[in-house]
């Protein structure tokens, strides 16, 4: 007897996963960004021999260490949830999901863990160059770690390189390189990781501006802002470029996500991109989705009704047709299992052939009505605009902060407004990152694995009350961790980098 899965169970499980991922993504991008910035600063120290840069790098390393310590292992809770709340999914994905995560754990995490010790304990104990290498390898380890996580995530958005085995009810990897290096994974990696670099840069500029506002550590602050602004600007431009690539990939593989985040009910050719309600950039959506000004972009209704011509020349199926084929696939799986149980190899072979024919629509067999295929358009519409809006803002912000540090004008008190804005920009970068994940993850609903497994099939048959309880436990735990992080970090920032000015008249004595 199969237990009915309530929408409450699905909603609480999704909320729990989303909350854990969102907290986790507060710590991770700052780690990725600060790792690169402190690497650049230490490189300058090794190249110039100026001890100022050593002290500057050490201060940001300290902040990196606090963030790393609080954030480390918060991602493991997501893996707990896979095993408990999403057991059907965990089994169904088989080694596809396990392999990247195992590589992440063994290779990247150990690399990161080894070199972080040399980075923190190795000052004056190992050579300058070995220390510098360790600092970079710590950052590279964290980045490689992110690569494998994002490969696993991309596979859920666009499953490739695998074959479904009905005997084991698992997907089996048949092409590791396709899974690891599919274009969508490459784009997602650069887009996500570099958004972390933007946060790291915004953080360094923001905290440095706070010192300028308090008239402390002038040289340290201006030098840090100069490095972070150039680094942040480069990162933001690449994020914008990969964002455009990402939009194109989404249009090809997840057209419903694109239609939903644009709020496009009815599609067509020569589609404009809506900035806010009523304000459009002509042709822009067509260019984003098809690379031509007159390309056809299907809307939500078109995707549900089908019948339009797809880029490969075939005619799109309607949602109802896909659901029919999905149900045939589920029936074929049932027949295959029954035939195998009865030892009837002929019937099993026929069922397997029927399953293979409709397997790409397998997940549609669990969809109750076509409207269930439409994600939350309001949330997506605004999350997309928050993400893109802050992305554009950061281009202007980093240009301005870099320009004003050229002649040290940023230290002037008339730019106090910019100091305050820089502090607020730390949160803007966090909002942008969170909004990006909402676009990616809410946008692919109802799918746990695009077209193959919706959340109502992926979820474990749990008591919703137990999921609700653990949701609040996590909420409390993560909030405490966040308060701890902010508390320790604020203390470290207030204490400051010490006397790193090293030039007379340029360094204000530290306050106690």
């Amino acid at each position, binding site marked *: 007897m*199969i237990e009915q899965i309530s929408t409450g169970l699905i909603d609480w499980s999704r909320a729990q996963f989303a909350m854990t991922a969102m907290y986790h993504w507060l710590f991770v991008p700052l780690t990725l960004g600060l790792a690169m910035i402190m690497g650049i600063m230490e490189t300058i120290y090794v190249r110039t021999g100026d001890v100022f840069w050593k002290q500057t790098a050490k201060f940001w390393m300290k902040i990196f260490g606090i963030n790393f310590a609080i954030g480390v292992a918060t991602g493991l809770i997501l893996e707990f949830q896979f095993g408990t709340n999403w057991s059907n999914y965990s089994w169904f994905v088989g080694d596809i999901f396990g392999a990247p995560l195992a590589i992440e754990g063994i290779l990247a995490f150990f690399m990161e863990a080894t070199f972080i010790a040399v980075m923190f304990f190795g000052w004056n104990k190992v050579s300058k160059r070995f220390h510098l290498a360790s600092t970079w390898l710590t950052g590279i380890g964290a980045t490689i770690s992110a690569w494998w996580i994002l490969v696993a995530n991309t596979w859920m958005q666009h499953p490739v390189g695998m074959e479904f085995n009905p005997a084991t009810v698992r997907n089996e990897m048949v092409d590791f390189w396709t899974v690891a290096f599919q274009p969508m994974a490459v784009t997602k990696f650069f887009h996500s990781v570099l958004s972390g670099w933007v946060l790291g840069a915004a953080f360094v500029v923001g905290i440095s501006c706070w010192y300028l506002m308090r008239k402390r550590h002038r040289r340290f602050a201006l030098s840090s802002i100069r490095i972070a602004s150039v680094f942040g600007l480069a990162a933001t431009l690449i994020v914008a470029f990969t964002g455009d690539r990402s939009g194109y990939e989404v249009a090809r593989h997840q057209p419903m996500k694109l239609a939903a985040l644009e709020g496009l009910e009815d599609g067509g050719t020569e589609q404009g991109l809506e900035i806010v309600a009523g304000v459009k950039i002509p042709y822009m959506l067509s260019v984003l989705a098809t690379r031509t000004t007159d390309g056809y972009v299907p809307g939500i209704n078109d995707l549900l009704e089908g019948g339009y011509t797809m880029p490969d020349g075939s005619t799109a199926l309607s949602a109802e047709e896909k659901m029919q084929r999905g149900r045939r696939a589920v029936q074929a799986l049932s027949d295959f299992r029954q035939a195998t149980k009865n030892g009837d190899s002929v019937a099993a072979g026929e069922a397997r052939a029927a399953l293979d024919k409709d397997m790409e629509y397998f997940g549609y067999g669990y969809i109750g009505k076509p409207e269930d295929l439409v994600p939350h358009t309001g949330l997506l519409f605004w999350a997309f605009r928050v993400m893109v809006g802050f992305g554009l803002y950061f281009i202007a912000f980093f240009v301005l902060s870099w320009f004003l540090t050229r002649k040290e004008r940023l230290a002037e008190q008339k730019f106090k407004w910019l100091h305050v804005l820089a502090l607020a920009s730390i949160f803007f970068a966090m909002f942008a990152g969170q909004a990006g994940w909402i676009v990616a993850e809410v946008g692919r609903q109802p799918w746990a694995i695009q077209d193959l497994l919706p959340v109502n099939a992926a979820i474990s048959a749990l008591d919703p009350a137990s999921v609700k309880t653990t949701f609040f436990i996590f909420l409390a735990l993560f909030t405490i961790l966040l308060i701890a992080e902010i508390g320790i970090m604020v203390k470290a920032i207030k204490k400051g980098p010490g006397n790193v000015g090293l030039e007379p008249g340029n360094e204000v004595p530290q306050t106690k």
Partner: protein
Amino acid sequence: MMDVNRQEERGHPLAGPEVPVCSLESALGQGMGRAGTGTECRASRRTFFLVRIWRFYRDGFQAMTWGKTLWVVILVKLFIMFAILKVFFFPDFLKGKTETEKQDYVGTELVGRGLDNLENGF
């Protein structure tokens, strides 16, 4: 005394400045050792290297200031995660089943939910 960085750049980066090669006793802090044979040297170098790593970590942890607070946070967090959350709130849903039982269970669930959907709507 030799310059620390210069010596370390020649040898292994974790090698210290004052302990002659092939002197396990020195590495363990028991005074200067004797000259060894090739095999002894290789063996003692390995042990010596491990001792140096041990000392590197030990000294690093002992010299920590704010890092000690962070380690407390990390250990408390890991304890809560693995000893409480994982054990009491997040048991593996398919735990205790063999591989065959797991595939049977998930297969039955997936087929059942699909057929339920077919018959009743979801």
